[in-house]
């Protein structure tokens, strides 16, 4: 055998851009965009960013088309579009978190979390959000106790039992409910409250929040239950297991991760609702731990009221930011909890 192997040109191998080329193109377009921005005196950074994005998308297409051919260029075009879209989506998120953290940590400390406004005027420094946290937890907790079971049971009915007109009607009304603005849910409960001649109290807010939560839970639970393969239901029924036990012991455990995630997301949604709380709970600078009597505070409402009653005072703004940060952290912890439960309960595939 001779060592001199003649290398024939491969038909399967074409010219490829090096691995680092997307980064190089991105860096290049950013540099050009900064140059153009400075030269033309564009003072909006958004314009700079847009120029960079267009240059990056166009640049990767043109360069790839010259080196690799049009098919690969289209691939690179799609990839770079996805990346640009991803960045566009992430920038507002990151900037929101950044601003909230930067401004929120100023007054956020243990004192702030464990004390209430009490007699501290909104324009003065001091005070805290203990009453608001307590109110939020109670109202959202009660709303979840009402909304989540009803939502999950409705979804079970729709997927496992519902046939014909009743289930079609329920599906329709769930769709309609999904679109109810939160203020309308608040007004609905408010009308009941006025008819019964009641003063604002926390549980009224919970009822409105439960109305908002239910359709979200129904929808997500429905999707999760539909994902459970029919074969599992049949396998269970064929063992002579009654339908209700099949649902309880086979269908629900298989989908519990997704259902929990759906409930957590619904909680996250209602935890930030201000309008119904404003109408029904009113807010209260003092600690009221009884959700069934008297006005209560709540985090989103606290943020709104600190902002609205600040009279331009920096102290109130600081407290509003700190409360926002707390609210975001609360929702984040819920989401992480949901992830944890989903992973813990997910069908096991390990060998």
């Amino acid at each position, binding site marked *: 055998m001779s060592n001199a192997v003649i290398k024939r040109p491969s038909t399967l191998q074409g010219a490829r851009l090096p691995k680092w080329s997307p980064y190089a193109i991105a860096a290049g377009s950013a540099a050009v965009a900064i140059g153009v921005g400075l030269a033309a005196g564009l003072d909006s950074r958004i314009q700079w960013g847009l120029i960079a994005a267009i240059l990056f998308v166009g640049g990767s297409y043109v360069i790839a088309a010259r080196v690799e051919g049009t098919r690969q260029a289209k691939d690179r075009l799609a990839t770079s579009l996805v990346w640009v879209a991803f960045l566009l989506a992430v920038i507002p998120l990151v900037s929101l978190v950044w601003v909230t953290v930067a401004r929120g940590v100023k007054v956020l400390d243990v004192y702030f979390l464990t004390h209430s406004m009490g007699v501290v005027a909104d324009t003065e420094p001091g005070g805290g959000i203990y009453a608001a946290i307590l109110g939020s937890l109670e109202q959202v907790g009660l709303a979840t106790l009402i909304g989540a079971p009803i939502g999950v049971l409705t979804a079970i009915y729709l997927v496992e039992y519902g046939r014909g007109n009743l289930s079609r009607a329920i599906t329709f009304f769930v769709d309609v409910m999904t679109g109810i603005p939160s203020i309308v849910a608040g007004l609905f409960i408010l009308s009941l409250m006025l008819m019964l001649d009641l003063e604002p109290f926390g549980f009224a807010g919970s009822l409105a929040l439960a109305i908002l939560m239910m359709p979200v839970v129904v929808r997500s639970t429905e999707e999760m239950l539909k994902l459970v393969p029919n074969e599992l239901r*049949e*396998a*269970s*029924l064929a*063992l*002579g*297991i009654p339908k209700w036990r099949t649902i309880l012991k*086979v269908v629900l455990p298989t989908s519990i991760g997704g259902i929990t995630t759906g409930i957590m997301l619904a909680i996250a949604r209602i935890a930030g609702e201000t309008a119904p709380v404003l109408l029904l709970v009113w807010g209260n600078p003092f600690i009221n731990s009884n959700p069934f009597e008297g006005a209560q505070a709540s985090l989103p409402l606290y943020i709104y009221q600190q902002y609205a009653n600040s009279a331009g005072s920096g102290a109130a703004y600081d407290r509003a930011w700190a409360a926002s940060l707390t609210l975001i952290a609360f929702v984040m912890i819920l989401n992480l909890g949901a992830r944890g439960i989903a992973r813990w309960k997910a069908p*096991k595939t390990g*060998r």
Partner: protein
Amino acid sequence: MAKRIDVSGLTAYYSAHKAIEDISMTVEPRSVTAFIGPSGCGKSTFLRTLNRMHEVTPGGRVEGKVLLDDEDLYGHGIDPVSVRREVGMVFQRPNPFPTMSIFDNVAAGLRLNGSYKKTELQDVVEKSLKGANLWNEVKDRLNKPGSGLSGGQQQRLCIARAIAVEPNVLLMDEPCSALDPISTLAIEDLIGELKERFTIVIVTHNMQQAARVSDRTAFFNLSAVGQPGKLIEIDDTERIFSNPSVQATEDYISGRFG
């Protein structure tokens, strides 16, 4: 334990569509009966009428009689849940419960029916897994999830799960169609052992398999697409494969159609 099945004048529908028409046959206890026939001829539908799984499909309904020994499964006041405890089923694709361990999968039938003693459970699981020829492969990993097993092992797990509740009849809907030849052999051997204790009905597309495992064979056919499937003939397997009395059976078996 094994019971005889007597079917007379059975017709099954999916809503308005008639899937099988006027089927009558007898399935002998402690024997293997194979159903063969082209796709869509209603073998599986018929099999599912034997433990009232057909009506689980929306729109599914049945006319006619299925006698298990002397009791009509479709008689007045019969609870389909109790029927399914007597007539177990193994499906085409292995479907272990993904949230349960191997042990729990086998114990599922007993546990979820609520009628068991804790001390018995261990024995039943071991016995069932041994019965399904799976014990030696899984005895050290009973607490691992059932979905981590190979396809053939999963199917044997499903068989163990089905026999753990001690049914009288075991229905198998193409149990080997998703398996390789070695796993298929394992399950065929298993069928040979199980027929000592159960009445077994097996649907198969593999005619060699029908010839290998069954004592009696039923041939189903349909006159045209959209027409209901019918039972053409049922006879001893040897006769069906050597000297069937109907021309269509011979054509199907010799590969002239289907």
